[in-house]
């Protein structure tokens, strides 16, 4: 049947063909609107593992802890930049032509996330000013802090929207952040990196599974 015609040939449209067309169209549309895609989630996971891993390699074995090297920090920001570019590209692809409530909600989510993220760095400055050690200020805090506060902000947002998948992801991030702090100022980078990467890979697997369901 020519699907580009405007005629109301509904009675000739076989229900089995209709069911197939409905399923295919829904699946294809969901995939096109999906953000982030499983591939992007995996790219983010690899970038974060590489970023945290670079820091961990530069600080492991330090005694006393003196913080990451300049090269490791450059590598960290380079991976964050790559991940950000990939996110921006994907967001443009998925959200092209889409307007309305979910776009506004995404912008409103950005506000608490940025505020929470910046608060970690303000807190680091305050702790250093108050005389806390390098190990706390430049070890535990920058590695675990963002996961805890950003995860908590995302969890609140997800709970309000009853987005259970995002809530699970957010709580897992909080757990990884809090748990990784036990690994000490050097180990926290490795544990948080692996944990964060594992959470994102699990998310990508769930996304792929949902696509097929």
């Amino acid at each position, binding site marked *: *049947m020519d*699907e*580009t*015609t*405007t005629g*109301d*040939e*509904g*009675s000739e*449209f*076989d*229900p*089995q063909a*209709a*069911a197939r*067309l*409905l399923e295919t*169209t*829904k699946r*294809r*549309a*969901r995939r*096109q*609107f999906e953000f982030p895609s499983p591939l992007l989630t995996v790219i983010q996971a690899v970038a974060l593992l590489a970023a945290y891993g670079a820091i961990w390699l530069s600080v492991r074995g330090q005694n006393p802890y003196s913080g990451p090297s300049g090269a490791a920090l450059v590598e960290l920001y380079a991976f964050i930049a790559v991940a950000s570019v990939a996110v921006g590209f994907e967001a443009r692809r998925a959200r*092209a*032509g*889409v*307007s*309305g*409530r*979910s*776009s506004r909600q995404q912008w409103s989510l950005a506000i608490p996330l940025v505020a929470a993220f910046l608060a970690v760095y303000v807190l680091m400055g305050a702790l250093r000013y108050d005389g806390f050690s390098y190990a706390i200020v430049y070890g535990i805090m920058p590695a675990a802090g963002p996961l805890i506060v950003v995860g908590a902000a995302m969890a609140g947002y997800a709970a309000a929207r009853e987005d259970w998948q995002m809530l699970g992801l957010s709580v897992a991030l909080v757990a990884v952040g809090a748990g990784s702090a036990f690994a000490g100022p050097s180990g926290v980078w490795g544990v948080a990196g692996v944990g964060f990467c594992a959470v994102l890979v699990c998310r990508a697997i769930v996304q792929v599974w949902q696509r097929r369901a």
Partner: protein
Amino acid sequence: MATDALDPLIHVPARLRIVATLAALPDGDALSFTRLQKMIGLTPGNLITHLRKLEDAGYLSTEKTGNGVASRTSVALSNRGRSALETYTAALRNLLAGL
């Protein structure tokens, strides 16, 4: 096969694809005419004709913003359209289960 139970407004390939595509968006979201056309693969004229039929039935709403070359038409599935698709899907399922 008896297709009387199926909503004749939706039970047309092009309109089924339009409604199913719009239903994939979260409730309260709209899609630009240009992207919808790209996703469905209809000519602008055909798409407008189908959209008008669906809009007349209250299944979707269109909104035009801007003027001239900057004008943009957005299409959104209404609550009525969403529930019509649900009813259609259920009727289709019943019909196929009875085979």
